[in-house]
């Protein structure tokens, strides 16, 4: 980690609790934007103390009370990426709020107000929290600030232009008058909020650009933070489940006589496709589940295996895909012998992966004849709301969902399946029940990162790439997740970073070939589509550089004249990584460059390959231009974490199937990276005034091709699939 850590703002309180019923609060400024607050129901635990609290709530994101406390409603969810802090900084910047009085609150399910502007649903993903909300939240902050300025100016008989703001205070310098926002809320509520109050210039930022301390971490250091799995509504029961080990299988028969004899076991719930045991605590539920004798009908996927999935995918990759991008005349340019130079082709494959979030899947639900209440940590609040309603068999209007901190999302919690299963179980249980997946169930019933097959062709002429064709074959997550975005056979996520490849190549064709694997459901995984495309592109580019006899960084740079921000990142990473300096035998450095999620990243991985093909990570150096860095330390943390998450996959991770069953089950057989395998990671953030780019996914996409290229440099072996095939790079294998 590099860069100055600084500006230790004192840590404002963060309230993770479910909030009191806002409908009981007395709102002063009932402008149009506040009407939504009356529309949903949340528990009234602290209703009495809230009843008298007056609030100025000019929009869906900001509430200010008479004491000057600023509550910011978080449209995006906190799963460790620091978004509560970054989003608060954006709002506080334009509002000129006193950072020490800022509190955050989870937004309720409400797509009208909180749908992600880029995704169109209330979801947190695709590295776009800051990107999508940058303008709307700055505007919300500025519009609110303008109300306070107008209110104070009216009170003082001066023009708003004569007033300025800082630390939640309006100041009139000429007369030395000051008024805090809290004291102004009644008058501010009488002002019609402007729609387009002027925004600050980037040079005037006081909050954005500083590595402020995170709002969510103090309670995570002392055990007080409440994740979904920690909720304890009164009268709670505990359950765990076994779903059909084969996707689409059904329960045939359950012998529960041994389970029922276990102390603490209260109830066995048998549904079509799963069984659950309800008990006094998780131990009783778990012991009960182990004592059940369940006979399954494995159904149509009983014979699915990894071999079948891969053979289908490889076969599918031979057909032409739907065209995502076409420039120039690729057919002519790639015709063998047609032009000068040489046509080169290679395939690259990525495996099915599990997410293995540290907090296993869980959801707590209380179903009554006319209501359902659920507690969860999710990336898709509105979809969970719908899933609970469906599972409980109730209209959405009778369902309440409370969101909590997330113990690892990585795309897994973009799915509401756990809420649906929990609600179906809870329907048969008296009182609230916390349904917790064992780690084994979590891994065997994940929604997996698709397996991908990439077929690439390029023509190399005089040290330059003159033609390029990239065919991505695999599952389309978008076709299931957001079908409206899946048009004419092209999954925009599946070809992301491929159709907008940064290299300047005159003849370019990118295709997508949908081939759904049998027996598994696929979903997003940190880094999403570019995890695959950037791996394939950057691996292939390295092979082309090798063919051309060029230095890998120089070769990339020569094709990036139209992308100077990526050239600058490459230059910086070359300087910081010690690129070109001597290394011991069987050590190598590899580079990757990418423009993904509107960020420009260059990454160098240095590794050593042992005689047996074991890979030791020695060092990672990354340079990033992500536009305005809202919180630079958070950006560094996200890149460090993204690198580790994906290097873990490159070194160890693959989900395989046999007889329809996922063969991995826990961290003993689904191995992940640990601290003793983690290298030093340096991140260099380039100063920029461009609009912010995405950062959560990008570390994940950058590191794997850089590692693969480091192995290529160390051994001369061009690996073509992940995870690393050690036998191909062991010394004995060299012939």
């Amino acid at each position: 980690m590099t860069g100055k850590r600084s500006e230790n703002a004192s840590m404002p309180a963060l309230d993770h609790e479910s909030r009191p019923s806002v409908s009981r609060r007395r709102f002063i400024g009932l402008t149009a934007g506040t009407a939504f607050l009356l529309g949903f129901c949340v528990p009234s635990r602290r209703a009495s103390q809230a009843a008298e609290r007056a609030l100025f709530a000019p929009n869906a994101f900001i509430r200010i009370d008479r004491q000057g406390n600023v509550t910011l409603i978080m449209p995006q969810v906190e799963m460790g990426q620091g978004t509560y802090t970054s989003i608060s900084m954006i709002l506080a910047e334009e509002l000129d709020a006193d950072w020490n009085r800022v509190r955050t609150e989870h937004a309720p399910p409400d797509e009208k107000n909180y749908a992600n502007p880029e995704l169109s649903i209330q979801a947190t993903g695709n590295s776009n929290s800051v990107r999508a909300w940058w303008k709307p939240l700055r505007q919300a902050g500025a519009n609110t600030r303008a109300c306070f300025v107008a209110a104070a100016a009216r009170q003082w008989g001066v023009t708003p232009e004569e007033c300025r703001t800082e630390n939640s205070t309006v100041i009139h310098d000429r007369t030395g008058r000051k008024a805090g926002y809290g004291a102004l809320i009644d008058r501010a509520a009488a002002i019609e909020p402007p729609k387009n109050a002027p925004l600050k210039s980037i040079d005037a930022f006081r909050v954005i650009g500083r590595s402020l301390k995170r709002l969510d971490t103090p309670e995570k250091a002392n055990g007080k933070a409440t994740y979904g799995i920690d909720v304890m509504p009164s009268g709670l029961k505990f359950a765990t489940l076994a779903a059909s080990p084969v996707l689409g299988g059904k329960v045939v028969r359950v012998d529960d006589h041994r389970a029922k004899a276990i102390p603490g076991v209260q109830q066995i719930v048998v549904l079509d496709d799963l069984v659950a045991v309800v008990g006094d605590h998780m131990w009783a539920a778990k012991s009960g589940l182990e004592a059940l004798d369940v006979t399954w009908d494995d159904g149509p996927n009983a014979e699915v295996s990894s071999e079948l999935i891969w053979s289908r995918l490889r076969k599918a990759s031979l057909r032409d895909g739907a065209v995502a991008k076409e420039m120039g005349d690729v057919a002519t340019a790639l015709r063998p012998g047609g032009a000068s130079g040489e046509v080169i082709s290679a395939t690259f494959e990525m495996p099915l992966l599990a997410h293995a979030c540290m907090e296993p899947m869980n959801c707590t639900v209380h179903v009554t004849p006319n209501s359902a209440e659920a507690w969860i940590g999710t990336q898709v609040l509105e979809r969970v709301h719908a899933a609970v309603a469906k599972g409980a068999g109730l209209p959405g209007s009778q369902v309440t969902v409370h969101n909590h901190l997330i113990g690892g999302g990585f795309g897994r919690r973009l799915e509401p399946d756990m809420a649906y299963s929990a609600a179906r179980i809870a329907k048969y249980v008296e009182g609230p029940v916390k349904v917790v997946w064992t780690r084994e169930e979590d891994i065997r019933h994940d929604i997996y990162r698709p397996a991908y097959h990439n077929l690439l062709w390029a023509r190399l002429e005089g040290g330059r790439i003159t033609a390029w064709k990239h065919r991505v074959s695999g599952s389309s997550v978008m076709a299931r997740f957001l079908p409206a975005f899946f048009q004419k056979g092209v999954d925009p996520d599946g070809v992301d970073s491929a159709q907008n490849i940064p290299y300047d190549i005159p003849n370019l064709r990118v295709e997508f070939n949908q081939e759904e694997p049998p027996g598994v459901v696929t979903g997003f995984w940190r880094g999403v589509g570019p995890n695959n495309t950037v791996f394939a592109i950057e691996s292939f580019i390295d092979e082309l550089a090798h063919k051309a006899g060029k230095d890998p960084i120089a070769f990339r740079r020569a094709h990036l004249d139209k992308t100077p921000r990526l050239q600058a990142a490459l230059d910086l990473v070359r300087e910081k990584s010690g690129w070109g300096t001597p290394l011991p035998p069987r050590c190598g450095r590899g580079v990757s460059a990418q423009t993904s999620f509107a960020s420009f990243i260059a990454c160098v991985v240095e590794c050593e390959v042992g005689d047996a093909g074991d890979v030791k990570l020695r060092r990672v150096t990354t340079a990033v231009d992500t536009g305005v860095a809202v919180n630079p330390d958070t950006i560094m943390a996200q890149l460090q974490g993204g690198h580790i998450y994906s290097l873990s996959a490159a070194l160890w991770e693959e989900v395989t199937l046999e007889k329809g069953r996922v063969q991995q089950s826990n961290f003993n057989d689904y191995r992940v990276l640990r601290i003793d395998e983690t290298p030093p990671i340096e991140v260099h953030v380039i100063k920029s005034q461009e609009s912010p780019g995405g950062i959560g996914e990008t570390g994940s996409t950058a590191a794997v091709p850089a590692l693969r290229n480091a192995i290529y440099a160390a051994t001369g072996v061009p690996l073509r699939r992940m995870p690393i095939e050690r036998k191909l790079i062991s010394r004995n294998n060299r012939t």
Partner: protein
Amino acid sequence: MVTLAVNGEHREVEVPPEMPLLWVLRDVLGLTGTKFGCGIAQCGACTVHLDGKPVRSCLLPVSAIGTRAITTIEAIGKTPNGAKVQKAWLDLEVIQCGYCQSGQIMSATALLDSIPHPQDADIDAAMAGNICRCGTYVRIRQAIKQAAGPPASS
């Protein structure tokens, strides 16, 4: 009836003797700071101290504890090294999702209790049993060194 000494208090619980401490802490005593991650002592999220030594509570039957003092994340800040570790964790902003961090902090505190100025190899040995999926390992290493402070000059 089992009597446990948890964070300096005697707590009586009516649970099966083979029930792992993890579920007693979380589901019976409401001490949810200790986390469930794997259930097979592979991930370290459930780490607590027994008489100051780190143990994985997910596989530890309550009947095996006896009179030994149990310390969880909720009380580790009352110990000198626990407080130092927590402070370093926040100063260096180690935490991301935070779910594994109770266990990380418990393991790191126990490390400093036994080795006041750990080297990288000591950190690897003491912390390799704690998985973090957010990838905070780089900062965990830095924070342990910061909590330890500079070695006393000899």
